[in-house]
């Protein structure tokens, strides 16, 4: 049977200077940002902050310079990302473009698409969303029904995308649409200009915490020109598979609740003594191990390998770690969470208690992910 390969990978010494630079930048930029806002990390959106990051050269770090990238190593990128997340920087605006859509265009996009889009993304000025889920297709992408019908010079799109994170702020959507009836080979990816296309309605969906990260995006005879097709017609299914693998192992897979861990430790410090030491020690052990696993995948990516299964392992373990954090905090401290008031700890607990259930849904449910891992183990 196949087992997973997690080779140890330590960050090169050279990354230390970069880390110090990022920390200094964040200390300045986040000085006045409330903790409960920081707790949103990669869900928090701040275009001004994104532009500043772009100016620093911290978006599109690994991309070729010809597309506005910086040709830095996977480790440099890792250091920037983990510092941003650990500090709770509002990286949400450019996040999807940097992590997922940019690489997609580099892999499958046309030269025209790359030239048009990537430099703007790298400057922190152009934001993306992903149009995959639909009302009747959550985990089951083959059930996608939004149709892109061939017309003169392009496609006419009709249908509804659901749960589209950040669509209200995004300039572009990478949309997965049906171009023919075949379950898998009937799907195609398109680059949709959300700001300049008629027939697109974006409705924010209020979530249980009162925020609106999700959207419903309705297409009514929206026209997408031929040159905005990404990759080749009918290969959307395969391209999406590759795309999802990108998003499974980064530091965002275990740091989404990190700020709560920090505040929890602060509360315990106030109580003095060794109260909660054992539980804190366990959390630290899991944190450090997850970081090593995530770094290991970064190391393989840097060597051009394809650690898709290892990335799934990181995502699964990371989501459990992140999701358990509010429960652990509750069990340790017993302090009631609040919203719209209360102490930093109470508010951060309130935000994350309500948010963590989504961590095992985003990018495919836990059950789907574990099924992928099981197949990787040789179970059929």
């Amino acid at each position, binding site marked *: 049977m196949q087992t997973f390969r997690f080779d140890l990978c330590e960050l090169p010494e050279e990354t230390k200077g970069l880390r110090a630079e990022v920390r200094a930048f964040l200390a300045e930029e986040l000085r006045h940002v409330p903790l409960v806002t920081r707790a949103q990390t990669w869900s928090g959106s701040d275009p001004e902050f994104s532009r500043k990051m772009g100016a620093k050269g911290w978006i599109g770090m690994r991309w070729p310079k010809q597309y506005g990238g910086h040709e830095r190593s996977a480790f440099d990128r890792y250091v920037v990302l983990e510092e941003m997340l650990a500090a709770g920087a509002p990286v949400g605006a450019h996040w999807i473009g940097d992590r997922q859509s940019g690489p997609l265009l580099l892999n499958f996009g046309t030269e025209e698409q790359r030239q048009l889009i990537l430099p703007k993304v790298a400057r922190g000025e152009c934001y993306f969303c992903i149009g995959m889920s639909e009302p009747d297709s959550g985990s089951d992408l083959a059930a996608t029904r939004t149709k892109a019908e061939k017309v003169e010079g392009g496609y006419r799109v009709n249908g509804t995308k659901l749960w589209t994170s950040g669509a209200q702020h995004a300039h572009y959507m990478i949309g997965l649409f049906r171009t023919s009836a075949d379950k898998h080979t009937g799907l195609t990816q398109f680059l949709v200009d959300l700001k300049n296309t008629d027939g697109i309605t974006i409705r924010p*969906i*209020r979530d*249980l915490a009162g925020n609106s990260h999700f959207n419903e995006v309705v297409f009514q005879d929206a026209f997408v020109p031929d040159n905005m097709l990404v990759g080749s017609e009918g290969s959307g299914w395969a391209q999406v598979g590759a795309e999802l693998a990108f998003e499974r192992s980064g530091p965002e897979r275990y740091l989404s609740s990190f700020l709560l861990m920090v505040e929890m430790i602060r509360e315990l410090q106030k109580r003095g003594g060794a109260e909660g030491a054992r539980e804190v020690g366990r959390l630290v052990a899991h944190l450090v191990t997850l970081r090593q696993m995530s770094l290991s995948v970064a190391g393989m990516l840097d060597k051009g390998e394809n650690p898709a299964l290892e990335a799934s392992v990181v995502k699964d373990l990371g989501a459990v770690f992140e999701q358990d954090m509010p429960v652990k905090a509750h069990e340790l401290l017993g302090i009631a969470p*609040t919203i719209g008031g209360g102490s930093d700890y109470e508010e951060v607990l309130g935000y994350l208690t309500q948010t963590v259930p989504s961590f095992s849904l985003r990018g495919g449910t836990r059950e789907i992910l574990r099924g992928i891992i099981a197949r990787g183990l040789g179970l059929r």
Partner: protein
Amino acid sequence: MNEMQTLLNDSITKLLDDLVTADTIRQAEDGTWPAALWEALVESGMTRILVPEAQEGAGATWEDAYVVLKAAGAASAPVPLAEAILAGFMLGRAGIAIPDGVVTVMEGDFTLENGRLSGVARAVPWGRNASHAVTLVESGWGVETVLASLQYARIEKGQNLAREPRDTLSFDHVVVDTGWAGLPGNAVRLYGALTRSVQMAGALDYLIRQSVQYANERTQFGKPIGKFQAIQQQLAVLSTQAAAVGIAAAHASARADKVTSGDAAAFEIAVAKVRADDASSIATSIAHQVHGAIGFTYEHGLHFATRRLWSWRAEFGSGAEWADWLGRETLARGADELWPYVTGR
């Protein structure tokens, strides 16, 4: 359930079905007091279910109140019914007349001098909507039951995750009614934990019903998700957790009826709150996992119950706090006394 409880269950369920809609809850979360619902609860006698008949109450038992509070928990009824019932219980015990209006309960750091109350109570349920609040204060005379008008209290608004009002009330030499009830000094916390456990049993019951229904309706990969073994296994776990809390809370309620001093029911109440807290963490996680993205929207009602569970598990003492107490008591009695103690109650 005895016959009387079956009738009570039918009546409270019908009342809540009629008057607690998703809109009622949403409006309450936005700050609108659900007057019609509250009025109906008052008129049906539900708010005074534990007030002695001599004081125009129903003179019922905690086992009866269990039926009402569980239904209220299942419905996410956005009103201080549990608090009013508990206030009525404490006032009845102390022989203090029950005022009209909304009466809540509070825990705080109070002093009582010459019939005047000073101090601060945090996270008082529906403090802003209440006309009065009941608390207990240790004075030179023992533990006194105190009924305070909120007319002269300073109110600072706050809310829990379910957007239920949890306000800070400050009193500065406010004249109050007092009486003796033979209740322990922590009776608000104790019986408060009992009411929350029962409400949580109701909310958990809602979660399992709602989740099974959704799993049978929602189709993925060409079949209802309830046909997938992974979902079935999780729903089985959710159902066992809900069942455990139901009986733990019922057991505590029955015990509260049997004893005259609140302390004597502390063991069973602690068991119920600990069990409810443990179950909530598992159950909310499963319910959301089964519902997927839809359960994460404000539009869908799932979160009315899950947000309440996330708040209630910490109110009137978290599971951890009550487990600490249970554990210390157990350790103090010693290993060989555990079984005789559990079976001798």
